[in-house]
Structures are given as structure tokens and as C-alpha cells.
């Protein structure tokens, strides 16, 4: 089970050694400068080996075969579930539901809870910094139920404007969906405060942890939230696996979102009854090796002191801030360092983000360009697209230099 938590000293060189992809040249021979962890994180060897171990030594279906492999693999999957439970501080392991990812988790709530309980006149509280994954499911649930969407306004530096909260959070608010950390602005939202205020109005709160969970310890009971969702692939684990955590009472009241094998208790010709948690929300064969791999990824990050990891990632972010601010024509979006995590989105006057990403790529620097699945936010920023550098625990200060140099190079090509 989990190695003792947070004991190793944090040394970025040692961390980099754990990630095979960072220790080999790109197919074209260049050195990779990977600044796209916000889109998906690279995988440490222990996760890769865990996947191989499952597939090589005990792969079979879970909860089904009465045979040696079935027992072994089920033990591993349930061990991973317990690792997740401990990691997010959930009270009971049955509340940990394996899904395909953040998007699948949110849809499970938007279908299973919102479409069942929302009525015309009810309100769902969102804001424009949400990723489409935490936006469109609620928009569609509102259309389907006749509920109304309300939006917490943003301050000019890209934080939720809590001074306006009392206007938009009302007695009609039934649900608040909010990201722990913006995937564009980097903004870290005050979840504990939002949860308390939502609950005071009788509303539930779901936190999209896709970006926040990988960058710091989360405790669902501390935060006082009702649902937490996140993806394996952004937390150094496999893609195709994610987590939906919800309070048992709420999960029990919800309808299942997908129907089929594993999620049933009994099936009759005209009706069916549902399995207990978590099975009720795990229809079909789950991503088996991926679930085990997610457990291994969490154990990997748990060996580091979360404060030290956070300090390292913020040192990178601070340096990026400083270097980028010195370059004429560069605009950084989002709040100051004290309110953000390790994501820096920017534009360069006269060079479209797409061209930036392409030119960066000439130097092996991988960033993301586009609207990053936040069209309402880019509308709000009045920018069709931005360029985004996002840092993980394995990035170095030298790689931040490479980012700044890549901007200068792009400006030169575009004669700016």
C-alpha cells in the first residue's frame, strides 16, 4: 500500500530521472521542453511498470472471474480505489467511483443528479472560467429541465468576484459547479468559502479538480464539498481513467447515468434495480490496468512533501512571470502569483498563438495554443486564442528560460 507520505526530499533532477520521456531525445533528435502538463502530464516509470505488470501478470476482468487472475486483479483495483480514498480524504471507499475521466464524471452528475432533481426556476451557478467539461453538461441539463444558469462575474484580473456572490447565489440556487483551478488563468478558487456559502443557501457544490488535484493535497471533508471530479492523466497517471467522488447520500439518491453490466442488482423483463455503490455508476468493464495505474501515480506523488512540490512549481511560475513581463508585447492573463497555480497563459502582440506554438516546437518547446476548451472565457478576454505554458513537478528553471527564449525567437521570425 501507500509508501509513507511525503518523506522524500524534493529534488527536481531525481524527479526527472523517474520520467523516461524526459530522458530521451524527441524523434527528431531535439531535447524536449515539456510545458504542456496542464493538457496531460507525463508518466513516471513506476506507473508505466505498473501497467505492464497488470497486463503481463494478472490481467483479467474484475469482480467476475472466480479464478486466480480475477482475484488478483480485483484486489489491485480495489487497492487503487482505497489509495484514491485516502488521497482525497473521503470517508468511505464506496464513494470513490472510477470513470473515464473528468468529463465522464461531470456528465454522470449532470445526468444522474441534475436531470433528476432540477426543476424550472431552479438555478445552477457557473462562471465563465470553467472548462467546457464543467460548463456544457450544466448548460444542457438546464435546457432539459427548465432550470436557469447564473454566472459568478470575474474580476478584471480573472478571479471570481466574491463581492457579487450574494447577487447570483440565491435561494433558488440548487447547484454550484466550479473549478478548483482554472486551466487558462491559473486562478485558484476559494473552494472552502464557496462551499460554505452554497450550503448556507441549500445548494450543492461540485469541484472540477482536473487542474487543482494534481498540484496540492485535497481533502473533501476539509473543503466541505459534495462532489469532486478529476482525471488520471493530469496527475501523472494513465488516460481513460478518472474519479467521481460524491457523498454517499447524494450518490444513492442519484440515478445511474449508464446502464448495463456490473451496475445492476437484478434485471427483470420490465425493470431493473441497481447495484450498491460504487458499482451503480460503473457500468460495463472499467479501464482495469488504468485504474491500477492511477493508484500507482498517486502513490508516486505521495512520496514527496506536497509543500515542497508546490514551492517548486510556484518558483517556476514566478520565474515565467518575471521573464515574460520583461518581453515587450507579451500579455499574461489571470491573477498575480498569490492567487494562481503553475499555469501561465499569454499572447504576444503580432504573433498568433498557433504560430507561437509552431515556432516553439522548432526548439522542442511544447506548449498549447488555442482556446483550451474555454470559449466563454476567451470571449470574455476578447481573445480568440491564447498560448499556455503549464508546469509540472518535473520542470526546471532552465526550461522557463527556454520558454522566454522561444518567445524572443518567435518575435524575431515575425519581425516584431
Amino acid at each position, binding site marked *: 500500500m501507500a509508501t509513507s507520505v511525503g518523506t522524500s526530499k524534493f529534488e527536481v533532477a531525481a524527479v526527472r530521472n523517474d520520467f523516461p520521456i524526459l530522458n530521451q531525445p524527441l524523434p527528431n533528435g531535439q531535447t524536449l521542453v515539456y510545458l504542456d502538463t496542464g493538457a496531460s502530464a507525463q508518466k513516471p516509470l513506476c506507473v508505466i511498470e505498473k501497467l505492464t505488470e497488470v497486463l503481463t501478470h494478472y490481467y483479467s476482468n474484475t469482480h467476475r472471474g472466480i479464478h486466480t487472475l480475477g482475484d488478483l486483479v480485483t484486489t489491485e483495483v480495489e487497492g487503487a480505489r482505497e489509495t484514491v480514498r485516502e488521497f482525497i480524504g473521503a470517508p468511505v471507499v464506496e464513494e470513490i467511483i472510477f470513470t473515464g475521466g473528468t468529463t465522464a464524471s461531470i456528465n454522470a452528475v449532470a445526468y444522474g443528479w441534475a436531470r433528476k432533481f432540477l426543476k424550472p426556476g431552479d438555478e445552477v451557478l457557473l462562471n465563465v472560467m470553467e472548462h467546457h467539461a464543467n460548463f456544457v453538461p450544466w448548460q444542457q441539463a438546464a435546457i432539459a429541465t427548465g432550470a436557469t444558469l447564473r454566472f459568478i462575474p470575474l474580476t478584471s484580473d480573472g478571479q471570481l468576484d466574491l463581492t457579487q456572490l450574494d447577487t447570483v447565489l440565491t435561494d433558488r440556487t440548487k447547484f454550484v459547479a466550479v473549478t478548483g483551478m482554472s486551466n487558462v488563468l491559473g486562478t485558484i478558487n476559494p473552494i472552502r468559502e464557496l462551499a460554505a456559502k452554497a450550503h448556507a443557501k441549500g445548494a450543492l457544490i461540485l469541484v472540477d479538480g482536473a487542474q487543482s488535484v494534481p498540484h496540492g493535497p485535497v481533502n473533501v471533508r476539509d473543503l466541505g464539498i459534495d462532489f469532486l471530479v478529476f482525471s488520471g492523466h493530469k496527475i501523472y497517471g494513465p488516460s481513460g481513467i478518472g474519479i467521481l467522488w460524491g457523498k454517499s447520500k447524494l450518490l444513492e439518491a442519484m440515478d445511474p447515468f449508464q446502464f448495463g453490466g456490473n451496475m445492476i442488482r437484478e434485471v427483470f423483463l420490465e425493470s431493473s434495480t441497481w447495484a450498491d455503490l460504487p458499482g451503480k455508476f460503473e457500468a460495463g468493464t472499467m479501464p482495469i490496468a488504468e485504474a491500477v495505474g492511477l493508484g500507482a501515480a498517486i502513490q508516486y506523488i505521495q512520496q514527496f512533501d506536497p509543500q515542497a512540490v508546490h514551492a517548486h512549481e510556484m518558483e517556476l511560475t514566478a520565474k515565467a512571470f518575471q521573464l515574460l513581463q520583461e518581453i515587450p508585447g507579451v500579455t499574461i492573463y489571470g491573477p498575480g502569483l498569490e492567487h494562481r497555480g503553475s499555469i501561465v497563459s499569454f499572447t504576444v502582440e503580432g504573433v498568433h498563438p*498557433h504560430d507561437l506554438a509552431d515556432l516553439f516546437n*522548432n526548439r522542442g518547446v511544447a506548449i498549447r495554443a488555442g482556446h483550451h476548451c474555454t470559449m466563454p472565457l476567451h470571449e470574455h478576454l476578447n481573445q480568440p*486564442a491564447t498560448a499556455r505554458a503549464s508546469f509540472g513537478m518535473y520542470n526546471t528553471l532552465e526550461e522557463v528560460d527556454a520558454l522566454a527564449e522561444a518567445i524572443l525567437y518567435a518575435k524575431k521570425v515575425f519581425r516584431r
Partner: protein
Amino acid sequence: MTEDIYQEHILEHFESPYHKGHLAHPTCCHRDKNPLCGDVIELQLKIDASDCVSEAYFDGKGCAISQAAASILCEQIEGKPVAELKDMQAQQMLDLLHVPLTASRQKCGLLAFKVLKTLVYAHETDEPQV
């Protein structure tokens, strides 16, 4: 290396585009968007009595590749019969750019071409344009 996609002629078309602007009385116009990156291209065509493109203008916003491609396309299609433009292939558009585009950048390079295709096919069926 993709460095060579920002060759002189691409940057020149980006910085000093051919026929960027609007026609006073276009025969038809159409606008499309690359939803991934937000590139926008609007094409305006003047089509004469013999079904030839007499004037082509574009307007748009976006990356150098999408905008340069629109400029190059406008330059190329003036004087061409609509029937010939209907037969134009995506590869011909890419060839006009003279730079190697990866699959993801081909969407940028082909946006103006896509708008043109919509226009020339609508011209035959005589459907009203938005």
C-alpha cells in the same frame, strides 16, 4: 523541422495581404471558422456573367498560415471560371503555399479553401448565401 513554414512569401502575404478587405457589391460571400484555434476567414467574390471570378477579397483573423493562405488563394482564383474552382483539390491549395504543413496546421492552411468550396458549390445551385 517546421521552421520553413514561416518562409518569406508566407510572412509577406501575412503582413501585406493581397485583397484584404471588402467588396462593395459582392456576388457572394461566406465566412467560416476553425473552431479549435478561432481562425476566421470571410471570402467575398465578384462573379461575372461568364461565371468567372473577377474579383476576390478576404477578411479574417488568425494565425499567419490561415491568413497567408487566404491571401494566396485570392490572388490565384481571380480570372478563373467557377467550374474550374469546383474541381480544385485540397492538395492544390497546399501546393500553392509551398511549405510543408503538419496535419494540425493543414486545417489553418485549408480554411480559406474550404470557404471557397462552399461558395463555388452554392453558386451552381444558386442557393442564397448567408
